[in-house]
């Protein structure tokens, strides 16, 4: 009898612990999801109520004055991100092609892969310092170019690794078919392999783009920010994240309002990019034995 009761108690205890673990896991999930919902709620609530037409069409008013917008920051972000993509995507894709097509299994490829991971882990503020000393110091002034290069460097590792992984998914038989038809290898890599893997490669580029679109730290002392219209690569330029940062730490309520609106626009841009990625990937890549 005694042993029997012991066993029941024990199994009661065990199922109790089991239920408690389940409850704790659910609690953890709720605690993770809650701040996300809070952040989105505040963004939409505060951002949407302060969005207006002027936000998209006007440049900032002088400090303390009500009104104005972030038109120059939106355009500035576009300019900086364009430079970044121009710099980061070709090098990133090239590196990915090397890793997947030419360097497979070699020690150099492993080293490149590891270096890309290292580059991925470099804090964005350090990237800002690097771009500062590489471009701003020799040029003697802050510029959109320096900001673009800093962001471009940050794009490279993501693009490289996704390109490599996507190219490796393309079946060997496709490459062999192209080569067997007498297509030169370089042509087969570009028009056959890369094209087959293009949805995945585009995904990688968009992810990298979305990641650097919100970066502020590398722009702080490269692009610097600007209160006026500027599209020149040679001058300091404003960017959406920079403007949000400057407005968030300012003492004026109207600037806080615009910071929320700017955040909403920035997040909307990033979410659009990520959803485009989902759309592209859901169309599916050609998969098979590698």
């Amino acid at each position, binding site marked *: 009898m005694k042993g029997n009761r012991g066993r029941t108690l024990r199994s009661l205890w065990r199922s109790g612990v089991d239920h408690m673990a389940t409850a704790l896991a659910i609690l953890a999930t709720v605690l993770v999801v809650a701040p996300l919902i809070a952040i989105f709620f505040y963004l939409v609530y505060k951002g949407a109520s302060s969005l207006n037409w002027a936000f998209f069409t006007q440049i900032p008013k002088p400090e303390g004055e009500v009104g104005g917008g972030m038109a120059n920051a939106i355009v500035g972000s576009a300019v900086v991100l364009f430079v970044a993509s121009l710099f980061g995507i070709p090098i990133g894709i090239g590196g990915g*092609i090397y890793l997947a097509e030419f360097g497979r299994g070699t020690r150099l490829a492993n080293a490149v892969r590891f270096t890309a991971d290292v580059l991925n882990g470099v804090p964005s503020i350090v990237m*800002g310092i690097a771009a500062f000393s590489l471009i701003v110091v020799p040029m003697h002034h802050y510029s959109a170019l320096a900001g673009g290069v800093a962001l471009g460097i940050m794009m490279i590792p993501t693009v490289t690794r996704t390109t490599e992984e996507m190219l490796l998914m393309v079946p060997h038989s496709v490459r062999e078919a192209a080569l067997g038809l007498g297509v030169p290898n370089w042509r087969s890599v570009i028009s056959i392999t890369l094209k087959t893997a293009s949805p995945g490669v585009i995904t990688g580029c968009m992810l990298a783009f979305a990641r650097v679109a919100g970066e502020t730290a590398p722009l702080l002392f490269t692009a610097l920010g600007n209160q006026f219209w500027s599209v020149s690569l040679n001058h300091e330029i404003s960017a959406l994240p920079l403007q949000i940062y400057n407005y968030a730490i300012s003492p004026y309520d109207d600037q806080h309002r615009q910071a929320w609106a700017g955040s909403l626009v920035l997040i909307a841009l990033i979410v659009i990019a990520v959803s485009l990625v989902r759309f592209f990937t859901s169309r599916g890549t050609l998969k098979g034995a590698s």
Partner: protein
Amino acid sequence: MTDLRVPNPVATTLQNGPSESTAPAIGQMPETSTPRGISAVRKYLLSRGNSSGSDRLFAGAMLLCALAIFALVALIAVELVTQSQLSWHAFGLPFFYRYNVDPVTHLPLFWDPVNGVFYALPFIYGTLMTSLVALCIAVPLAIGLAVFLTEMCPRWMRAPLSFFTELLAAIPSVVYGLWAIFVLVPLLREHINPILIPIFNAPILTRTLGWTGLFGDNGLFGGVNLGLGILCGGVILAIMILPIIASLTREVMNSVPNSQREAALALGATRWEMIRMAVLRNARIGIVGSVILGLGRALGETMAVAMVIGNSPEIHLSLLSMGHSMASVIANEFSEATSDMHRSALIEVGLALFLVTIVVNAVARILVWAVTRGTPARVQ
């Protein structure tokens, strides 16, 4: 052209099929199991091609792109080292641990750009403390979330929940900072800290555990409750690194073979016992790796922390006190550096941050790789 006269190897490999003949065991990465990864057919066709010139040019260009990654990391390192020479020569290694004493107030003086005093100790302390707070909050939650998503969650909830957590990773840090300034700081100041302060300053705890120095007026929750400070920085960091730790932990848990789970369940384990014995135990190295990867992110995170940490170069044990982290001091002072020495000292802080994050990331990558190498690579 000698290849033409030996068609045999080509024929046999074609019949067998390059991938079928060397079909790897399930769960192994096929591309690593074949050295060089190029089939005999391809090698043969490549050697037969009549475009070796342009091919070599193309391969060279791609190699150049790959080497550019090397060059960039090397360039960053070289620039950081050369630009920080000034402060390195002036302060040497004590830059990271020494401090002056203020002649008037007799308080330690770490960082005074006006008088040319540059010691980085408070920034190292601030970075470590915020990261520690972040890990203490994020790790249990991330593991709980990963356990829920991989082992307990109903199938229909899995995709939306993981999409949600991915979204959390896509929010820019400046937006986290904005949210922290206007929502988290008041929340901490008015609702959470008033609960925590009496607990940590309870007379029983101060009397019995006062010797640890963690409780009472000079303890973790002593001082003025402003909302801003190290605790706030740690909390916002925790929210930011959660998705990374959770998604990597999930990946590691997914790579635990199902047979392990089935074995545990067949022996009569409850679900939690199965998770503890089969999943967490097998995945522990990978989980540690993902935590370290999250730590690497936390150490280098700049904007959100800079916006709420309070920006004062001091060291106090209290989590409520203002602080400064390595990244936040660079963000705050770099573009307004008063002297070359100031700028150089900031770059030296950046160099230290660079080196630390490289080490942390390398360790984490190796740990994660050690666990997940058995499963096919996936895009994150």
